């Protein structure tokens, strides 16, 4: 079995942007074109390679070559080696093309968007690093390599959210994003080491020996209890915790809306299209593990049930918050959270293809929406509050047209928009789910609210009359509520408010390309011709129009069509009929003020976390510090005091008892010494006298001695 060149050299795809990042990190600040050119060039080549890889995967679809794996040694451990590797299979190929394509478009867009930023070069350096880590994550054939890239992706997200580091809100948001996702990541890490211990390898596929290959899975499934939990389920749930953090699922969703502090291209690329979808991709990648049921069990995989529920709840929860937001990017951010919930729901109830199809379509239309929002913000002089926009369709026709396409895709307008087909797949799978019907109802409710809040946003931004000039009148401030976390507009008030203007072609061209894909992609996954699904599952597919008319399919399609139009109609009826005015309170707020406040304040989740987790951490730190100062240090001080005390007693004993005797002796010694010293008073005559006397005595003695003998 011959491996393809593209599979063998798949590593080039992440390494090219990595090189670009490294080189532009070393470049000087003024070498702007160098950094941008390098980033875009490397991404373009990566896209070509990704397309080649995709072609390879399509060619081998359904054959034994449909999964090509290259593993290599990383380091020695024990008797063996820890190995990493990459894999080319349909899942990788699809994701690669999406990331490269969306990435390239956003890179190009950024040249226009960031044109006036002094740290232009560094922006592209970080973006390239991000792209590299993201692509590495996509091709990884080892959970370890996956985790490494996953963390680097988190780092770049941190760096890019905090790109305008001088804004305290951006610095805080960056930190919040990193910490919140890290909570999930640490559970993920435990899941990884647990899986490593159980399966003996972290390679996904390794000629039948990998942890997702059948023997390892069968081995895992027999592990019923350890620590009182079913092992495969526990591991799967721990890994899922990582996905919850990265993909902003409940209860770790709080960082994603704050991440909108970053520049808009970052929001589009990282916090809409790719990185946040990495959690969904993770679940898709380790799906065999997630779907594992303990041997002998007849119920469904517990992990998938949890995933489905978390996804469904997140979808509704975030969509309801989006209804009451007024910041153009935050609405989209909550929408992203909600759509990620849909993807998770799709994975949980339907399988890889269902979740992944929505991931791909969402990446295109959400990137489109974010970049459109960026274009709006750019055109409105950094205004982000939708209540201060209005009527922009006249000023920004291209942005309006593309934004409308994105909005309709997101709302699920039937037939011509990809969002409809992919969301429909999810609802269909939820409808067919055997465990419970509730996720389906939640999904429908979420879809309704999605259509509603998107219409609300469209009405605010593009319809009615332009309210942009009003921002100078003090009265306009009364209507606005200071939301925590939303910074005051950056730019000083312009004296003669310029009219909103259309963005340069560098920014609108990518919008048009994305809009094109937003429309066309849907046709790759219709029930009539489910190409994406069968590609991912390695089956053959043919056009079969009858697929549309199957009873379940048609029913769900009807329901979602009705829901989409109801949402849009409701939104238009409430917000679109009369020209909006800045001073008036929100229509919903007039009707249900308490509920609206609850939604606008995001169910107070941030506040609750502030009181509980942040407070707990601060309390814990204080307690540790206190322990250190008073208990440990106190014990040491006590011992020290004891030693000093003993020393003092010793001294007293010494001086009063021991030394008294000693002193007496010394005194008598010194007296006798004094007496003796008289012999040594230094008078030479005296010495000589004594010497002479002694000599005489000696001589006498000797003589006497001789005689005696």
């Amino acid at each position: 079995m011959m491996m393809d060149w593209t599979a063998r050299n798949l590593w080039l795809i992440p390494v090219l942007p990595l090189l670009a990042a490294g080189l532009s990190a070393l470049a000087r600040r003024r070498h702007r074109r160098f950094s941008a050119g390098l980033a875009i060039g490397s991404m373009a080549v990566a896209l070509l390679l990704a397309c080649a890889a995709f072609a390879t995967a399509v060619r081998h679809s359904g054959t034994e070559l449909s999964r090509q794996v290259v593993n290599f040694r990383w380091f020695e451990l024990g008797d063996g080696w820890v190995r990493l590797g990459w894999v080319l299979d349909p899942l990788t190929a699809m994701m690669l093309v999406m990331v490269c394509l969306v990435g390239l478009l956003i890179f190009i867009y950024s040249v226009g968007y960031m044109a006036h930023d002094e740290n232009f070069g560094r922006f592209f350096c970080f973006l390239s690093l991000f792209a590299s880590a993201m692509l590495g994550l996509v091709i990884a054939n080892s959970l370890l390599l996956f985790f490494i890239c996953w963390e680097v992706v988190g780092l770049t997200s941190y760096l890019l959210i905090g790109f305008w580091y001088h804004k305290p809100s951006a610095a805080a948001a960056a930190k919040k994003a990193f910490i919140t996702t890290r909570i999930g990541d640490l559970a993920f890490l435990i899941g990884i080491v647990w899986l490593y211990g159980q399966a003996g390898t972290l390679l996904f596929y390794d000629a039948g020996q990998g942890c997702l290959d059948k023997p390892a899975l069968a081995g895992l499934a027999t592990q019923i209890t350890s620590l009182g939990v079913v092992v495969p389920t526990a591991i799967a749930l721990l890994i899922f915790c990582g996905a919850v953090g990265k993909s902003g699922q409940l209860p770790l969703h709080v960082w994603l809306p704050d991440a909108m502090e970053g520049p808009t291209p970052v929001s589009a690329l990282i916090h809409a299209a790719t990185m946040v979808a990495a959690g969904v991709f993770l679940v898709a990648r380790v799906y065999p593990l997630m779907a594992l049921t303990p041997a002998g069990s007849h119920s469904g995989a517990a992990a998938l049930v949890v995933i489905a529920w978390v996804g469904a709840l997140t979808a509704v929860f975030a969509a309801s918050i989006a209804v009451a937001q007024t910041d153009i990017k935050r609405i989209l951010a909550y929408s992203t959270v909600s759509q990620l919930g849909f993807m998770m729901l799709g994975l949980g109830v339907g399988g890889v293809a269902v979740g992944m199809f929505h991931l791909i379509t969402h990446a295109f239309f959400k990137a489109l929406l974010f970049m459109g929002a960026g274009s709006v913000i750019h055109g409105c002089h950094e205004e982000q509050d939708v209540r201060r926009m209005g009527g922009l369709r006249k000023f920004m026709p291209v942005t309006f047209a593309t934004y409308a396409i994105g909005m309709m895709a997101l709302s699920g307008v039937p037939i011509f928009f990809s969002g409809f087909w992919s969301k429909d797949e999810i609802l269909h799978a939820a409808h067919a789910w055997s465990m419970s019907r509730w996720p389906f109802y939640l999904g429908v409710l979420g879809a309704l609210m999605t259509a509603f809040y998107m219409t609300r946003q469209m009405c605010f931004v593009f319809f009615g009359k332009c309210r942009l000039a009003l921002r100078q009148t003090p009265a306009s401030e009364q209507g606005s509520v200071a939301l925590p976390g939303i910074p005051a507009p950056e730019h000083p008030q312009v004296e003669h408010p310029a009219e909103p203007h259309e963005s340069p072609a560098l920014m609108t061209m990518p919008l048009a390309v994305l809009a094109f894909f937003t429309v066309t992609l849907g046709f790759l996954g219709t029930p009539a011709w489910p190409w994406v699904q069968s590609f991912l599952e390695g089956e053959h597919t043919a056009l079969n129009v009858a697929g549309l008319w199957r009873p379940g399919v048609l029913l769900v399609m009807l329901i979602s069509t009705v829901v989409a139009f109801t949402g849009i109609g409701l939104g238009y009826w409430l917000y679109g009929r009369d020209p909006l005015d800045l001073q008036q309170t929100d229509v919903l707020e007039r009707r249900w003020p308490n509920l609206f406040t609850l939604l606008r304040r995001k169910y107070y989740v941030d506040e609750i976390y502030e009181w509980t987790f942040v407070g707990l951490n601060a309390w814990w730190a204080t307690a540790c510090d206190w322990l250190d100062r008073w208990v440990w240090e106190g014990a040491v001080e006590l011992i020290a005091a004891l030693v000093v005390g003993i020393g003092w007693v010793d001294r007293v004993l010494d001086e009063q008892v021991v030394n008294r005797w000693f002193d007496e002796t010394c005194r008598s010694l010194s007296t006798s010494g004094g007496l003796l010293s008289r012999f040594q008073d230094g008078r030479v005559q005296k010495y000589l006298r004594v010497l002479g006397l002694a000599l005489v005595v000696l001589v006498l003695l000797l003589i006497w001695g001789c005689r005696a003998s």
Partner: protein
Amino acid sequence: MNAVPWITILTSIPLAGGLIVINLPAEQKKLARFASLGVSFLALIVALVIWLAFQKSSVDLQFQELHNWIPTLAVQYHVGLDGLGLLMVLLSAIVVPMAMLASWKIDDRVPIYFGLVLLLQAGLFGTFTALNFVHWFMFWELSLIPAFFLIKLWGGPLRSAAATQFFVYTMVGSVALLLAFLAIFLATNKFDFTELAELGRKGTLVPALSEKLGWRELTTRRLALVIFGGVFLGLAVKVPLVPFHTWLPTAYSEAPTGTTMLMAGLMSKMGVYGFLRILVPIFPEEMRWVLTPLLWLTVVSIIFSAGAAFAQRDLKRMLAYSSINHLGYCLLGVFAAMSSGAALATPALEKAAALNGALLQMFNHGLTAAALFWFVGLLEERGRGLRGLDDFGGLRKVAPVFCGLMGIALFSSLGLPGLNGFVGELLIFKGAFPLAPWPTALSVIGLLVTAIFILTILQRVFNGPLNEKWSNLPDLNLQERVLLAPAIALMFVLGIYPQVLLGTINSTVVQLAQHLKF
């Protein structure tokens, strides 16, 4: 036995150099600085030569030298290196020149300062190569004395108290260690680590102790535990393990930058090294008796020190507590490797992973902590003596390169993949989790809190609006960049290709893990 006594050469280079430099006249500042730097580079070269000549696949002690010294007392000059010792020698050879460069601006009694640093290095080399207790202990103490004077003479405002506390604390530990070894000698007539390890492995040490020293009041087990406790105390103070750590924050924060680098980067490793060289091989049984409390003590140490670090407002104290936290992971790996793992499929592999991780973490922490204290020293120098968490703000605007490089070091300390800190922690967790699931799972909290306080440093010092007071703060100059670059580069190299070190230590670790089989 080999023709060239490489180890003796290695240790005597800084010893002789130190003695010469310390006796230079006080006004020969430049000469003293360059001469000592030269000597430390020479030692680095010799260490690298030894590394290259080291047989990586062999499990035996290499470069052994064995000479009788005081035969009646079983005192021999016995030195040798395995992967563990070599790793520490390399680390010492790398960190000492870094510390010297960081101390370049010291202007008071220069020859004495640099001479003491060299003597300290000699003590470290001696400690990491000695295989006989008596001269191991001599070098162990030899490294203590220069450290004391370095703090006492060149430290911050509280230097006297800090130095005394440090010295007395460590001395108490050393005395306990010495007494324990005298007891062992009385029982076995041996001072040689390899011979004692043989006894420990066979399990004959405990009976020998009770036979020769049996006190009526103490059962065999208690006696063995008392002696074990003495050795443990001596090493735990050095690491340090909570609650034997209170000397550390003051000592680290009062010592001059270069000395802090030596203490955090190298001297703390002596403790962990002692655990691996002495406690694990010689007292495996005793350790198993008290393994559960030891593991939980480690968990407390990890979580507690992370929390305490978060509460600090002085960057040096923060990093000091963070050091305790990081070394806690080393000990977690070591202790986890002592548990039986009988229920596991591959206990030897898990133990090897935990121990490899612990060793790697020692090296990585040595490098990263030294670099971080260096950065704080540079910041203090620029900040007119200030180094509080809230004294700065927005420095990225005026000193982007400084912030970038220090950011890399901080993320390395946080354990970001791609940088050196990650692999060690990963291996520790990989090995420790199956062997001791709950302590390991709880230790993860330490990783989280570490992330929180490291990002807090980044947020308060580097991000946010620029504190106008520092609008003229100079960025790193070319010379500083060149000096720091190797350390930063090494962080990347070890993060991306850890085989550089793991290839050296793996065989030793595998053998150690095999000896822990039972």
